[in-house]
C-alpha cells in the first residue's frame, strides 16, 4: 500500500505531466516522471528499468483526466505484483486514454473554460478588479477536484474509477456548459454593443446590426478565414474610414 505522502508527491508531479510534451509520444515521458516515485517502491534494478521502459510507450490524454488514469495505473501496478489481473497496465492505458481525452477536451476546454471566461470578461467590463480571480476560481474548482479526487480515487478504486467517471456524465455536463456559454455570449454582446452605442451617442437601434455582423464573421470563419486575418482586415477598414 502506497503511503499518503507518496501519493501527494505523485499528485504534485502530475502538474508537470506535459513538461516534455513532444510530437513523437506526447505525454509518455511525463507519465514516467509522474509514476516514478511509486515505481521505485514497486520495483528495483532491472525490473525498475523494464517498468520505466513500459511506461515510455505512446500516451496522450487530457492533462486533468490523466490523474484518475495515473491512480488506476498505480493500483494495477501494485496489484500486478501480487496476483494475475484481467487487464494489463498497458492495455488499460491504451484503452482509456482516447475516451478520457475526448471527455476532458469537451468538458474542460470546450465547456468550463469558455463559461468561466465569459463570466470573468463580463465582470472585467464592469470594472471589477477581482474579475480575473473569479475566472480562476470558477475554472480551478472543478479542475483541482478532478486532479485530486481522480488520483486518490483511481488508486483506491482501481478499475472501478472508470465507472465513477462514467456516472459523472461529463459529455452531458459539457453540453450544458456550452449552452450556458452561448446564452452568456449573447447577453454579453448585447451589453457591449449598447455601451458602445451610448459612448458614440448613437441611436440604440443600430445595435441590432451586431447580429448579422456576428453571423457574417462566423460564416467567414467557417470558410477558413482566420481570426487574425479578420481582426486585422476589420481594423484596417475602420482606420481607413476614420483617416
Amino acid at each position, binding site marked *: 500500500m502506497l503511503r499518503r505522502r507518496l501519493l501527494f508527491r505523485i499528485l504534485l508531479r502530475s502538474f508537470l505531466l506535459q*513538461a516534455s510534451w513532444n510530437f513523437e509520444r506526447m505525454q509518455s515521458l511525463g507519465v*514516467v516522471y509522474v509514476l516514478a516515485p511509486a515505481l521505485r517502491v514497486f520495483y528495483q534494478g532491472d525490473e525498475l528499468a523494464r517498468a520505466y521502459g513500459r511506461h515510455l510507450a505512446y500516451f496522450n490524454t487530457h492533462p486533468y483526466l490523466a490523474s484518475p488514469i495515473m491512480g488506476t495505473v498505480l493500483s494495477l501496478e501494485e496489484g500486478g505484483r501480487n496476483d494475475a489481473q484481467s487487464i494489463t497496465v498497458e492495455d488499460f492505458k491504451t484503452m482509456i486514454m482516447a475516451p478520457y481525452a475526448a471527455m476532458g477536451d469537451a468538458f474542460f*476546454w470546450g465547456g468550463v473554460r469558455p463559461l468561466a471566461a465569459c463570466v470573468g*470578461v463580463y465582470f472585467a467590463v464592469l470594472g471589477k478588479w477581482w474579475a480575473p480571480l473569479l475566472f480562476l476560481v470558477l475554472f480551478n474548482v472543478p479542475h483541482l477536484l478532478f486532479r485530486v479526487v481522480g488520483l486518490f480515487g483511481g488508486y483506491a478504486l482501481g478499475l472501478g474509477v472508470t465507472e465513477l467517471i462514467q456516472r459523472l456524465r461529463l459529455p452531458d455536463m459539457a453540453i450544458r456548459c456550452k449552452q450556458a456559454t452561448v446564452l452568456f455570449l449573447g447577453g454579453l454582446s448585447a451589453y457591449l454593443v449598447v455601451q458602445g452605442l451610448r459612448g458614440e451617442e448613437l441611436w440604440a437601434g443600430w445595435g441590432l446590426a451586431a447580429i448579422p455582423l456576428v453571423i457574417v464573421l462566423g460564416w467567414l470563419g467557417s470558410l477558413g478565414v482566420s481570426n487574425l486575418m479578420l481582426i486585422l482586415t476589420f481594423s484596417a477598414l475602420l*482606420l481607413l474610414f476614420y483617416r
Partner: protein
Amino acid sequence: MLAGLDRTAAMQFMLSRPLVAAPATGLLLGDFWIGLQVGILLELLWLGRLPVGAAIPPDDTQIAVAGTTLAIVMGAWTGWVGLPMVLLSLLVSLPLGKVGQVFDRFARYGNGRLLVKAENAVGEGRVAAVDSLHLMGLLLFALASLATYLVIVTFGSLLILMLAPALMPPVEAASSWLQLAFPLLGVAMTVRTIHVRHAAVLYCLSFLLVFFLLWPHG
C-alpha cells in the same frame, strides 16, 4: 515565462489566459487597468480554439503579456496613453504573435530529442536521469515563451515608433468601434465552433432579450 509554462508544460491553472496574464503584467508594470483592458479585448478572441492533441493554438498569452508591456512602456515613452495606445499595441502584437507557434513547435521537437535520450538512459539502466530529462522540457517551453515575448516587444516597439504618428489619430477616432470589434469577433468564432445544437438561435435570442432590456435606458 510563468504564464507561458502554464499554457502547456506546467500546472495549467489558466494563469496563461489573457484575462489573467495581462492584468498580472499590468500590475507588475504599475498599471493594472491597462492590463485588464488588454485582457478583455483578447480573452474572447481565440476562446474557441482548443489546445487539443498536437494542435498549437495562437500564443494569446505572450500577445497579452507583450501587448500590455507595449501599451504601458511605449505609452509612457510616446505620450499616447489609454485605450488608443492599448489598441495600437494589440494591432502590432497580434501578427507578431504568430512566431509563438513557431517557437512552441521548436520546443516540442526539442522535447522529442529528450525522449530519445530518456529511452537510451533507461536502456542503460540509468533510470535516475529520466526525471531531469523530463524537467529540461520546462526549460525549452520557457525559452520559447521568452523568445516570443522578446520578438513581440522588440519589433512591436519599433513598429509603434514608426506607425504611431500616422496611425494614432484614426485609432483614437475609431477606438470605441475597435474596442467592440475584438470581443464580437471572438464571440462569432466561439459560437461557430462550440458545437451546440441551434447555437446561433440561442445566441440571437439571448442577445435580443438583453438588448431590449437595456434599450429603454439607452
